[in-house]
């Protein structure tokens, strides 16, 4: 019998598996087709071109209710990426802070940090989102509380207002060059600023490399601090002065604040909740990573006469980062996926636009969900590709 012959067993089993798989797929597909026919439905993506017919108040690009469903989905995608990006940064800050302090030899501080980690890890992120959304909408004063001579609420430092409709912070405005270019002016200005920063990064790296080369050749390391600071800050400051960067401070006009940047309560809720929740996980990764570097490494380094701060940057951190970064990247992936919970507080991310309102209005359940899954799959494949690149570049090279 084919199953008992080792030459053919693997092939036979795979053939059986293939047949079963094909049967299962055929059965499911057949069911879908029958069901759709019975309900008079079909698979059709043309609804993406139709006007969406709903408004989105949190948007990064121009969008009206007459825009297409595709554009609504795109607004949602940008919102997802925005909140994921913000939350990744803040979660890293929280996590590194708590993880390092948890290893502190200060008993009280390390205990406090363990409490933070345990409390935030063991309570569903959904509840955190709702709690922070509650703080933002119930505890914060209404804009009218800021009115009058003896107002109940005061603006923070006179420039920011925390209201139950969101937080208003001063908004940067490029008053000179980009002033006449309309709505995209600030966007272009910031893109140029980021480009300058990237150039500064490469400039700084060149200076550091040159310093290392000189040190290796002559044994004396030239001072790089001042040059580096100049490379980092001078072009940026010059750019801001040329374009006339000014901050517009929000003001109470009518029933609401006008001017500046408004960060809506839903965005803040989802951003902070994801940050503190994921921060607790990152804290554990950071702690584990630092503890994974064996004590012998530090001792060997100090036996070689390396100074303490150089031990940290040359010996401990490179080894700890190898342990910390892979789980950190998977936490970033988790943040991106968990940002889909934004639908709960009415933040218009891609799950809320494409998978929520568009789905309900058009009734195109299969198409919307397939597209939604495809988007998240692409994002997570990109993130895992980055993780793999990093892992391969830092892998211990043995034998």
């Amino acid at each position, binding site marked *: 019998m084919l*199953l008992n012959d080792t030459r053919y067993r*693997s092939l036979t*089993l*795979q053939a059986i*598996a*293939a047949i079963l*798989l094909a049967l299962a797929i055929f059965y*499911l597909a057949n*069911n*879908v087709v*029958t*069901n*759709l026919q*019975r309900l008079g439905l079909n698979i059709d993506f043309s609804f993406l071109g139709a006007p969406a017919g709903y408004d989105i108040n949190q948007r990064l690009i121009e969008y009206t209710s007459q825009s297409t469903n595709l554009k609504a989905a795109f607004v949602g995608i940008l919102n997802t990426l925005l909140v994921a990006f913000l939350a990744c940064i803040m979660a890293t800050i929280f996590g590194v802070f708590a993880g390092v*302090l948890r290893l*502190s*030899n*200060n*008993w*009280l*501080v390390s205990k*406090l940090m363990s409490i933070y980690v*345990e*409390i935030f*890890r*063991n*309570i*569903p*992120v*959904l*509840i955190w989102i*709702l*709690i922070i959304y*509650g703080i933002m909408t*119930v505890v914060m004063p209404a804009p009218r509380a800021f009115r009058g001579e003896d107002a109940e609420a005061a603006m923070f430092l006179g420039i920011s207002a925390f209201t139950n409709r969101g937080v208003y912070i001063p908004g940067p405005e490029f008053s000179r060059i980009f002033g006449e270019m309309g709505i995209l002016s600030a966007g272009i200005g910031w893109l140029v600023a980021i480009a300058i920063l990237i150039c500064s990064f490469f400039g700084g790296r060149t200076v550091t490399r040159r310093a290392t080369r000189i040190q290796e050749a002559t044994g004396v390391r030239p001072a790089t601090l001042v040059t580096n600071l100049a490379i980092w800050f001078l072009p940026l400051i010059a750019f801001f002065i040329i374009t006339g960067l000014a901050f517009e401070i929000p003001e109470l006009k009518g029933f609401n604040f006008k001017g500046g940047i408004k960060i809506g309560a839903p965005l803040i809720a989802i951003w902070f909740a994801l940050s503190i929740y994921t921060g607790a996980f990152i804290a554990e990764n950071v702690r584990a990573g630092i503890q994974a570097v064996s004590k012998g490494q530090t001792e060997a380094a100090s036996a070689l006469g390396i100074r303490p701060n150089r031990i940290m940057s040359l010996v401990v951190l490179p080894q700890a980062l190898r342990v910390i970064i892979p789980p950190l990247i998977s936490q970033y992936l988790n943040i991106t*996926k*968990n940002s*889909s*919970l934004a*639908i*709960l507080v009415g933040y218009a991310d891609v*799950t809320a636009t494409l*998978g929520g309102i568009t*789905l309900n209005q058009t009734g195109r*359940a*299969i198409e919307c*969900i397939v597209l*939604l*899954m495809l988007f*998240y*799959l692409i994002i*997570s*494949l990109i993130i895992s590709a980055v993780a793999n690149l990093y892992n391969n570049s830092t892998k211990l090279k043995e034998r």
Partner: protein
Amino acid sequence: MSDTSANAVAFVRTESVPASAPPVNAAGPVKWLKDNLFDGVGNSILTVLAFVAIFLILSNTMPWVINGIWDAPTLAACREILDGTTGACFAVLSERWNQLLFGFKYPTEMYWRPALAFAMLFVAFAPVLFFDLPRKLLIFTGLYPFIAFWLIWGGPIVNPILALVGLIVGYMVFVRLEKTSFAMAMGAGVVSAAVIWSLSKVIGSDSAIFSIGYLETVPSRDLGGFMLNMMLGVTCVSLSLPLGIALALGRQSSMPLIKYVCVIFIEFIRGVPLITLLFVASVMLGYFFPPGSGVDLFIRVVIMITLFSAAYIAEVVRGGLAALPKGQYEAADSLGLDYAQATRLIILPQALKISIPGIVNIAVGLFKDTTLVSVISMFDMVGMIRGPILASTDWNGVYWELFSFAALLFFVVCYGISQYSQWLERRLATDH
């Protein structure tokens, strides 16, 4: 002579001086304080900051908790009792206790049924969690799913009994034939189980047997509250464990077809958020069943959450499999064990032991994720709070009491599970 020699030296100490106590700052609480809290300027600043933080947190929350009102019919009445002072209205918890635990549709006079099932859950889990208990208790664990199903959903007791008998007959057929051929035994087992299961159709629903042990039926859509979270958590973790192990073994397989099917499945599930899978369960999964079968939402959600956590468990178990030294596989081969025996006797016991912390993490995460079903309008604990309770005129506006309670409940369960897993790791540790 002796006198003179005794007097020759003015003074000789004949016993040692008792050791004097160490300086105050080198021992006892003062030393502890100095070492742990005020060790240097930076540390002292941190300590002071920590104390300030603790004080701020406690001074803001304690009056609220201590002044809490536990007995009032509505929020307005509670605010009246508080009379402007700071205090929590925990009365919402005592008034809506049953709704928080069982949902708002489960028949009131039948609360004892899920409560009993919940109590029995501990008995059923005890022998699985603690190895020192008598092994005979595992029989109860095996019976538990059927008892719990009967208690929670009701209906004639014949249905769960038939399901159980079907399983047992199928297993016995499988064991009888296993020696001759694994695949044949598997097939025969499944067929004989199916024969038993279809008996209830053959008997006909109006038969007298169905009135024996009849509990009033409760439809799935009436389940809710924390009970729903518990049911989803327990069911999905138990179901996803075997599926996850199978997927992990499949991913390690040398057969490319099986390997890639498993890889694609795992990576697909892990790449999408659970919420999209729940959308699938609520609006799309129905299309995959034969027309008119009308599988209810609870089962569809169980299917999707199980698939979701199985993919994650598969990755954890794969880590355990990869951590086993190659010698273990080779030793099993050289003993002449076939794949099934080697996997069951050599590979899995060790790989699973390595994967325990990871599996427990997944289980805790899954239990927390069961709150997501509130997004697809199932009334679990969070759904109850956001929906019927906060929307009612009596309790409109009691956020913190309700959310703190939900948070506390989840914290207790999840923290308990993670403590158990640490105990288990120590218990299973065989290294030095």
